[in-house]
C-alpha cells in the first residue's frame, strides 16, 4: 500500500515537472501579463532618486486606464508640487504650475528621464501585454534572490517598443517578473529592473517595489514604491482630459 502511495506521489511530481517544462515562453509571459497588465489602476507612489549617492524623495499619485490613458500628479517636494502629466493614446502632455498651461511632450522625449529618475515617461505608464509586442523564447531556468526562475528572452516583433530586446527572470511559483534587463537594438544594456515586492490585489500579483538602474547614467538608481494601489476601479472620465490637467 505504501509503495502504491509513493508511486502516486512520484507520478504527481513528474506530472507537475512535465507541465512546468512543457510551458512555452509565451505561456509564461502571458501569465506574467495577467498579473501586471490591469484594466485600470489608482495609486500613490514614492520615488527615491539616487544620484551620486544623494537620495531625493518625490511623491506622486496617478491613475491608468488600459494602455492608452494615464494621469500623474506630483505632490512632493514643494518644487515639483503640482507638476502633472497626462497620456492620451500616444500623446503626452505636461503641466507645470509655474507656466500654467499644458505642453505636449514630443515623442522622443517620452524615452527621457521622468522627473530626474531612472524611469522614463514610457516606463512609468507602460501597461501593455508583452506577448503582443515581443517574440518570446524560454532559454532556461535560474536561481535568483533565492527563488527558482524561468529565464526568458524577448525580441521585439513590432517597431513601436521602447526596448528592442529584454531578458526577463520570472518567479516559477508566482509568475511575476523579478528581474529584467532592457537592451537597445544595438545590443547595449540600457536599464536593469529588480522587483522586490508584490501585493496580491484581487486576481493580480502586482509589483509594488521596483528598483530601476539606468545604465546610461553614472552612479544612479531609482526606487519606486507603490502604495494604496487599487486595481480595476472606475476612474472618472474627466481625469483623462486636458481641462483637468490644466485646472487651477
Amino acid at each position, binding site marked *: 500500500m505504501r509503495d502504491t502511495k509513493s508511486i502516486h506521489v512520484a507520478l504527481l511530481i513528474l506530472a507537475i515537472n512535465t507541465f512546468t517544462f512543457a510551458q512555452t515562453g509565451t505561456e509564461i509571459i502571458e501569465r506574467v501579463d495577467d498579473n501586471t497588465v490591469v484594466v485600470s489602476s489608482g495609486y500613490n507612489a514614492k520615488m527615491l*532618486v539616487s*544620484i551620486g549617492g544623494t537620495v*531625493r524623495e518625490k511623491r506622486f499619485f496617478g491613475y491608468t486606464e488600459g494602455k492608452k490613458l494615464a494621469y500623474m500628479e506630483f505632490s512632493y517636494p514643494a*518644487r*515639483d508640487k503640482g*507638476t502633472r502629466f497626462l497620456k492620451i493614446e500616444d500623446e503626452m502632455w*505636461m503641466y*507645470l504650475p*509655474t*507656466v*500654467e*498651461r499644458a*505642453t*505636449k*511632450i*514630443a515623442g522622443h*522625449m517620452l524615452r527621457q*528621464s521622468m*522627473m*530626474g*529618475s531612472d524611469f522614463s515617461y514610457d516606463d512609468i505608464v507602460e501597461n501593455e501585454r508583452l506577448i503582443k509586442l515581443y517574440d518570446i523564447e524560454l532559454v532556461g531556468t535560474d536561481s535568483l534572490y533565492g527563488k527558482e526562475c524561468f529565464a526568458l528572452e524577448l525580441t521585439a516583433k513590432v517597431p513601436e517598443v521602447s526596448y528592442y530586446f529584454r531578458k526577463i527572470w520570472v518567479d516559477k511559483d508566482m509568475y511575476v517578473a523579478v528581474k529584467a534587463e532592457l537592451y537597445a537594438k544595438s545590443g547595449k544594456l540600457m536599464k536593469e529592473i529588480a522587483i522586490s515586492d508584490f501585493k496580491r490585489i484581487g486576481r493580480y500579483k502586482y509589483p509594488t517595489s521596483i528598483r530601476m538602474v539606468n545604465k546610461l547614467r553614472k552612479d544612479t538608481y531609482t526606487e519606486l514604491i507603490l502604495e494604496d494601489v487599487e486595481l480595476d476601479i472606475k476612474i472618472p472620465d474627466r481625469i483623462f482630459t486636458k481641462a483637468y490637467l490644466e485646472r487651477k
Partner: protein
Amino acid sequence: MQLFRLAYRNFFRNTRRSIISGISVALAITAIIVMRSYISGIFENISGNIVRLISGHIRITTTEYERRERMIPLSESLELTPQFYEALPEEGIALTSPRIKFGVLLGEEELNIPALGYAIHPEKERDIAALNKRLIGGSYINSGERAAIIGSGLAERLEVTIGDTLTIITRTAYDSPTGMNLLVKGIFHIGIGGMDRSLFYIPLDVGQELLDLEDRATEFVILVNDPNDAIDIARVIRARFDLSVVPFQHNPLLRYVNTANVVFSLFYLVVLLVACSTIANTMLMIVFERTKEIGMMKALGLTNLSIVGLLTIEAGIIGTLGSAMGTILGGVLSYWLKYQGIDISMASSSSSADMPFGPIIYLEPTPLIILAGFLFGLLITIVVALLPISRVTKLEPAKALKTI
C-alpha cells in the same frame, strides 16, 4: 655712385615699361598688405566675439562639464562660494561674471524649437557681452526680473515681440522638468546668424531659480587687464582649483582659425607668384633688350660684377618705388577699412553659432604687416631679377654685340 647714376638714367629710358613693372609690384604688395590685415581682422573679430559672448579671456568650468559640454550637463556646475572668489588672484583681473548655459525647447503648443539660454549677471555683463549695446528694440534686463532679451532671429521664429510672454520649458540640474513665463523685454541683434536665431538671455538669479542651481553657475568668465596675460593668470588659477581653466588663446575655435591661416597662406602664394612672374618678365625684357648694350659695356672693360650691380640697382629702383607705392596704397586702404569695416552681414547672418564671425570685419593692419610688405616687395623684385641678369653676364662681348 656712377652705377647708381647710370641705373637711374636707365630707369627713365623706357618710362612706360618701368611704370608698368612698378605698378605690378605695387598691386601685389597692396593685395598682400590688405589681405594680411583682413585675415588679422577676421582673427580679431572671432576672438573678440569668443571673448565677449562665449568664454571671456579665461573660462572656468568643472572638468566634467568641459568634457561633456555638448550635452550641457547642468549637474556639473561650479559652486560660487566666498572661498571660490577669495582664491582668485587679485592681480590682473578686470572683471568676473558667472553664467549658466542651458538648452530649452520652445514652442506654443508643442516644444519643437531648440534654443540656447544664458543666465547672466545683467550689470556685470554690460562690460562683457555688452548686449545692452546690441538691442534693436526694447530694453535691457535687470536682476530679479522674470524677463528675457532674445535674438532677432529667434524672435522671428517664435513670432514674439517686445511685451509678449516667452514660455520656456527645460530641465533642472536634477533633470526634473521646469518652466517659467518670461516677459520679452528686448530683442538683440549680434549679426551672427547662428546666435541671433538661437540665443536668449535671462538674469542670473532667475536662471538659478529656474534650474535649481542656487549659488551655482555652469561657467565663470574672467576678463583680464591685458589679454596677453590670460595664459599666465589661467595657470595661476589652475594651480589653486581642481577645475578646467581655459584661456581664450586655447579655445579650440581659435586654434582652428589659426590652422585656417595656413590655407590663407596658400592664397598669398598665388598672389606672390603672379607678382613674381610680372617682375621676372619685366626684368627679362630689360635684360634681353639691352644685350647689345651689355656686350658693349663688357667690350669697354666693365666687369661682370659691375653689370650685375647695375642691373640689380635698376631692379631695386623698380622694387623700391613699386613696393613703396604698394605699401602706401595697402596701408591707406587697410587703415581706412580698419575704421570703416567690411560689412559681411549677408554672409554672417547664415553663419553658425559655432563660428562666431561678423557682422563687420574691421581690418587689423599693424606696422609689422606694412613693413614686412615693403621689404618683401623689394626683396622679391631683386631675387627674381637676378636670374636673367646672371644669364646675360655669361655672354661673350662679341656675341652680345651681334645680337639684333
